[in-house]
Structure formats: structure tokens, C-alpha cells
């Protein structure tokens, strides 16, 4: 019986997980408390949210997750998952879980592993077979589908672990250190997958030591230390630095930099703090090398590049984004839209609950910077680009995202227009940036 149905009925923000005063104390044989892993924390996870749980080792992240999964019983407090007690077996039908370490049966191959977990969810044979094929394709393990998973590298096992977490098309996906052990390609794919699933309406609870990963994908997060919550809020609330502005432009001459500096002094009475030439990140270099090797069809016995998100995972959330399950024709139309939109104006990667914001193209931005009279036109063009919402995973080209991150408000403020740099964080203006993506690389 439901503890409190109001949480899943939308009266309280359509909450998936609701914890109040949640405490877990570990005891020894004589019931003497040995450690308080979680100490009276209050948090909630709303539907369609990508929620991050951060903290150093021993901060209580995994204990919290285990309580949500019903693997550990709480000592005190209240914890409700889908309106029910977490130990309720029916609750587990709606949850997918990727543990911190991938604990696979060494004697089963990936196909048998996914089939096994599918059976635990009571899926019929045809569904299991279809989902197994799609998931293996998605995580890039099709070529090793019949190799025992005991022979797998940590990264390959991680991919299989991720696939098993998705086999039931879960409403709540719990990922404990999902990028641990993955190579940069795998890490990027997992982050893209998380964003893709998030945009399709899945609720995701994520923990990671790699803070950049969390920053890239989470819409809201909690930071734990010593079993207590030290901070919580959206990425924008926690990470925004409203005292500085970053602008990325093609390489400027010393004269141009001086001119910009003078303009800034004249318009706003501030100067350039620092000027740096952007460097390619090691991740970008690595991805480039691997892509070239793949293009040359260099043989590998390891995991392959993953395919697109399994079709059965694209159902529910698509409704929230304005479209139901996409047919093949719709998918083709989507790609066509994407191509034309990319050629015309870059788009931001949509993230669940992330408000849209005006975006412009690189060229429009540069025109506006050089010629203030073009600012209004650039703003119009940017606004036009956002009128065509396109649902796309974050695997879109990096330059598309980077361009989208330029904020018309910043240009306005720089050129003495109506905008103000302080307004950057105002709703409808700055939120278009995917949370945590303010840093666009090069600085001027």
C-alpha cells in the first residue's frame, strides 16, 4: 500500500523520491552505533529531473542510494520512492540501477546477462530479445555479444552494466559513478546518453567524483559531507559567477584587444582582466584521434562506438518534449530539421526543465561585436533560431553548443545596449545555456 500517493500524483511537484530527516546509522553486533553514514538529510527528486549527488568518499552518497533501492533500511526519518516504501518489490520495477562497480556474472555473456535481467522484470521473450539487441547496439557491445563477460575490461563491463540498468525502460535511473572506468569516448557517450534520456523524460539520480561530469549533465544537485547536506540547488544557482563575462572570438591582434579594452573602459568603466589563447583539450584531441582511427577501420577487440539510444527508451519523455514515440519517418524528419537548423543557426541541447533562451550564430555574434548596428539583427536571428525546437541528444557537434552559449544579453551590455551583464542569469535570458556550460573554452 502506498505510503503517500500525493507525491507521485503531482500535488507536491510530482516527486519521485522524497526524503525527510533521513538517517542511517551502522551498528555492531551489540547494536552500538559505529558510524552515522547519513545524518538527517532532506531532499527530493522531481519527475524528469537529472539530479546529482556529490560528495567525497564516505560522505553518504552510496548509503543514500542503497536506502533508495531498498538494499539498506533507514534508521530514522522518512523515505518515499514513487509514493511507496523503497523495500516494496513493485517500486523496483520502475527503477534502473547501475552500481559503483559493475557486478556481473562472469559466466554469462552480454546477451545472456541482459536476458537474465529482463526475466527478472518478467519481460516476455520477444521483448527481451529486441531490447537486448538494441541495448547492446547502444552501448557498443554487439560484436562481443557472445563473449563471457568475465573476459571484459572494466570499461566494457561498465557499458554492460549500463545496459542492464536500462533493460526495464526505467522511470527512475540511478547511476552510481556511471563514467568510472570508461575511456573518454565512453564517458562522452554516457553523458550524451544521460542527457538524451533526461530530455526524453527519464528521472535520473547521478553520483560521481568527476565533478565536471555532474556539472555537464545535472539540472539540480546536492553536495554531501559527513552525511549531511552542505549545499543544494540548480547548477546555475550553485555555479554561476556573475562577476565576470567570457567572450570567444577568432584570434585578435594586439590592436584589436586594445580597442576592445578601450571600448570597455569607455562604455562600462572596466578593463580586460586577462587574455588567453584557447587550447584544445586533451579530451578533444583524444576523441579526434579515435574518430580518425575508426574512419580508417582499425580493428579492435574491445567495445565499439555505441549506437543511438535504444528505441524502447525513447517513448515516455518524447511526450513531454512535444512528440510521442517517433516513427522512422519522424526520425528522418528530425535529422533533416537538425541538418538545416545546424546550417542556419546552432541550437542548444535541450535538457529537461531547462528554460529556452535566445541563441545566435557565430557570424551574427561577430557582426554584432564589430558593428553595433547589427546587434538588433543578430538578436532577431538568434530568436528565430530558437523558435524551431529540436530535440537532440548532446552528441551534437561541440561548436554548435559553444556558439549557442553566447548570450545576446552580454553583447548588448558590451555595446551599451539595453542589456546588462548582470541580467545574464535572469530567467529567459541565461537559462538557455545547458546548466553548467558557461565555460566555452577560449577567452578574450
Amino acid at each position: 500500500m502506498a505510503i503517500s500517493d500525493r507525491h507521485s500524483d503531482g500535488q507536491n511537484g510530482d516527486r519521485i523520491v522524497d526524503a525527510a530527516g533521513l538517517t542511517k546509522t551502522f551498528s555492531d553486533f551489540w547494536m552500538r552505533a559505529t558510524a552515522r553514514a547519513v545524518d538527517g538529510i532532506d531532499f527530493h527528486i522531481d519527475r524528469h529531473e537529472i539530479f546529482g549527488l556529490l560528495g567525497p568518499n564516505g560522505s553518504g552518497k552510496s548509503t543514500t542510494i542503497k536506502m533508495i533501492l531498498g538494499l539498506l533500511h533507514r534508521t530514522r526519518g522518512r523515505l518515499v520512492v514513487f509514493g511507496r516504501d523503497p523495500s516494496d518489490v513493485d517500486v523496483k520495477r520502475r527503477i534502473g540501477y547501475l552500481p559503483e562497480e559493475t557486478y556481473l556474472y562472469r559466466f554469462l555473456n552480454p546477451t545472456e546477462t541482459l536476458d537474465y535481467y529482463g526475466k527478472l522484470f518478467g519481460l516476455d521473450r520477444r521483448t527481451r530479445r529486441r531490447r537486448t539487441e538494441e541495448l547492446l547496439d547502444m552501448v557498443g557491445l554487439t560484436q562481443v555479444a557472445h563473449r563471457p563477460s568475465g573476459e571484459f575490461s572494466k570499461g566494457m563491463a561498465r557499458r554492460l552494466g549500463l545496459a542492464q540498468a536500462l533493460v526495464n525502460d526505467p522511470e527512475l535511473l540511478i547511476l552510481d559513478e556511471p563514467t568510472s572506468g570508461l575511456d573518454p569516448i565512453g564517458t562522452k557517450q554516457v553523458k550524451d546518453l544521460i542527457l538524451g534520456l533526461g530530455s526524453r523524460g527519464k528521472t535520473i539520480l547521478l553520483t560521481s567524483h568527476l565533478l565536471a561530469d555532474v556539472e555537464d549533465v545535472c539540472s539540480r544537485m546536492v553536495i554531501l559531507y559527513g552525511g549531511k547536506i552542505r549545499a543544494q540547488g540548480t547548477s546555475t544557482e550553485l555555479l554561476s559567477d556573475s562577476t565576470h563575462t567570457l567572450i570567444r572570438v577568432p584570434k585578435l591582434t594586439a590592436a584589436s584587444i586594445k580597442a576592445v579594452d578601450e571600448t570597455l573602459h569607455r562604455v562600462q568603466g572596466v578593463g580586460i582582466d586577462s587574455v588567453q589563447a584557447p587550447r584544445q583539450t586533451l579530451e578533444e584531441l583524444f576523441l579526434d584521434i579515435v574518430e580518425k582511427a575508426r574512419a580508417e577501420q582499425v580493428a579492435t577487440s574491445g567495445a565499439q562506438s555505441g549506437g543511438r539510444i535504444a528505441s524502447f527508451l525513447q517513448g515516455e519523455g518524447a511526450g513531454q518534449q512535444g512528440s510521442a514515440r517517433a516513427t522512422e519517418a519522424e526520425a528522418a524528419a528530425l535529422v533533416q530539421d537538425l541538418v538545416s537548423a545546424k546550417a542556419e543557426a546552432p541550437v542548444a541541447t535541450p535538457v529537461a526543465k531547462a528554460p529556452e533562451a535566445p541563441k545566435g550564430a557565430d557570424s551574427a555574434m561577430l557582426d554584432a561585436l564589430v558593428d553595433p548596428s547589427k546587434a538588433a539583427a543578430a538578436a532577431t536571428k538568434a530568436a528565430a533560431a530558437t523558435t524551431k525546437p529540436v530535440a537532440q541528444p548532446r552528441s551534437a557537434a561541440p561548436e554548435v553548443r559553444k556558439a549557442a552559449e553566447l548570450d545576446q544579453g552580454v553583447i548588448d551590455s558590451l555595446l551599451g545596449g539595453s542589456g546588462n551583464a548582470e541580467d545574464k542569469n535572469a530567467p529567459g535570458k541565461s537559462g538557455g545555456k545547458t546548466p553548467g556550460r558557461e565555460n566555452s573554452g577560449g577567452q578574450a
Partner: protein
Amino acid sequence: MSLASAIQNKASDLGRSSAFRIAVAAVFSLVIAVGSILVYREAARLDRIADALPQLLRNADFKAKDAVATQLVEKGTIDVDGVPVGSEALRSAMERMFEGTGKIERVAEAASILLGTARPQWMPASIAQEPIVALAAGGFALCVVGFACYSGLAVPLVVVTAVCALLWTPLAFGGRLSLGTSLAAIPFFMFVFTLVVRLLLVVLDRASPMFAVAAGVVREAIRLRIAIAFAAIAIFVIPLLPQWIDPTSPLRYQVQTYLARSLDTMYLVCAFLTVFLGCATVAFEIRDRQAWTTLTKPVSRLSWLAGKWLGLVALNAAILLTCTVAMYAFLVQIRSRPAEDLLDALAVEDEVLVARIGGLPAYTMLPPAELQSAVEEAIKADPNAQADIREGTRTEIDVKKTLARAIAEEYLKQQRSVGPNQ
């Protein structure tokens, strides 16, 4: 790539080829169909002889010097539908049958002796008695071959057949038929075990947590070679046991020894498998934390444990089934060995290979009159008792009660005890 792995890969590719599987199924089906029809025809011929013999033997009269009786005594044979049945070796036995009245009194026994010579050594008695069993066995074998090819065991089927033929042929033609059969049976029954496990996995392939966990246990036991190791012990011992049994001892002892030793082996193997695998599958899964992933799925702890139990039961069933088939096959072989005498042969049929039912013994009480007289006689024969009564140490009633209890107890003891050679 080593030669072994290259061969393994090639065999694996071949096993996945539908054309190969169909071809193997067709060839084996044809051989089984032809073989079972031939066996059926031979068994039907024996059945006709068995039907005709009693009447012919009943009519035979040696005193009247009829042809049948004369032939039996002089040649040890009898013609049934123009075909002679029996052998020279039976002459003296047949002659003894006609002693007395000149007619055969023990017709069934004489028929049994004559039929024993007509039945080929390779034919089990069950088929000789019921020819339809040959067709049923053929049909069953066809199903087995079909399932083996369907479940991807076409290559092992061919390989096992070839290995069996290689082991059996030289030994059988070299006069060591029994040893050849025992050695050839080892790969054959390993294949049977594999087949039974595949069948189990098909049966357990259900969209239910308990069945999924059970199938996981079966796969674990096979892939980690735990079950294979234990099954191999039984599959080696059961076919080779007949080689260690003294063929000169009475047949009933040989059969009894084989049954006892093979049953012991089977039970020991199952017991050790249950203990080892039962401990390992739960403890290791918790230690290696696969249980953490499993228990975050909609699986109750009870279903998980029940699944583990079901998997163990299924594996034991696979070993029991394989061993039972092997035991039956070699029991038929041992049973066909020559008996020491007719009584030995009958003891095998009537004392060893018979089903028994349990029953409580019925004891009779000593009738009161006999008990009373026995007590009186005991008092007369016991001077101490008489002295006790006389001196008033004990009353007469006490002495009589004590003696009556002892006599009644002794009477019951006599009924319960089994003396030597009884």
C-alpha cells in the same frame, strides 16, 4: 591462433549452420528409423515363437515318440514355423523335462530356456517381451536427435558418435565387447548429460524471477565446470563398474553388487554437488556482490532463495536422470551374463530385480491355556521359585506374573528373530 582454437571456431561455425544441422538430423533419423524397424521385426519374430512354443511343448509326448519330443531330446531344438529354436547344449535339459510321464510338466520353464537361446545377446529382454518397445525407443531417439540438432548440439552429436565408434569397434571385434561398451558409454553419457541440461534450460526459460535465478544456477554450475566435474565422476564410474565385478560369482550377486555400488555413486555425487554448489552459489554471489544488482530488481529475497533451490534440484535431476539411464543400460548388460544355474537365474528375476512393498509383521500371542501350562511347568522346573513361594518371600501370584511376562516375551522374540539360512 592455435590449432585447437581454430578447430573449435570451425566447429562452432558449423554448429550454427542450419544446413549442417538439418543434414545431421536427417542422417541420424534415417539410421534410427531403419534400426528400430529391424529390431522391431526381430522382436516380433521372437514374440511369435514365444506364443507358439507353449502349445507345441504341451503336445510333445516322448513316450509316444512324436517328432517334436524326439527332436527336443536328440537335438535340443524345436521347429517353430519351420525355423529351429534351441541348441545342442539343451539336449540333456530337455531330456530331464520328459522324465516321468513322458510329457513336459514344466512347460513355462522349458519355453523360457528355449527362448533364451533364440534371443540375440544384444536384445534387451524388455524389447523381446514387448516388441512395440523397440518402436517407442526409436521414436524417443528421433526426438532426442531432433532436440540435439535444434539446440545446437549437432557437432557434439557427430563427434560423440565418432568417438564411441572408435572406442567400441576395435574392442568389440577383438573379443572385448563388454569393455568396449563401457568405454564407449562414457562420451555417450556425457553427451546425454549435456542434452538433459539443455532441456532443463529450455524448461526453465520463463519470464519469472525464480526460474531466471534457477537457470542462472544451472549455467553457473555448467560454465564453472562444478556440475560437469561431479557428473563426470558418476558417468565414469557407472559404465566401468561392471568391469570390476567378478564375472565368475553368481549372477544374483553381480547384479546386486552393481546396483548397490552404482546407486551409492549416484547419491554421493548428488550429495556433494548439492553441498558444494549450494554453499558456493549463494555465498559467492553475496561476496562478489552480484546479489546487490539482482536484489535491486523486482525480486524478493524469498524468490531469490527459491530460485537457487530450484536450480540445485534441477541439476540433481539432470544427474539422476543421466545416471539412471546409464545404470539401466548396464544392468541389462550384466543381466545378460550367464547364470550359475537355473536357480541363480530365477533369483535374479524373483529376488533381486523385483519391486518390493513394505508391510508390518503380524505377531500372534500365546493362547492363555498354553501360557498357563507353560507357567506351571516353569514353576515346577525352578526350585528357587518354589522356595520363594514356600517361604513366603514372594506370593505365588507374583511369581506366576513374572514368569508369564517372560514366557510371552520369549514367544514374541522367537517370531521376530531370523535364524541362519532362513
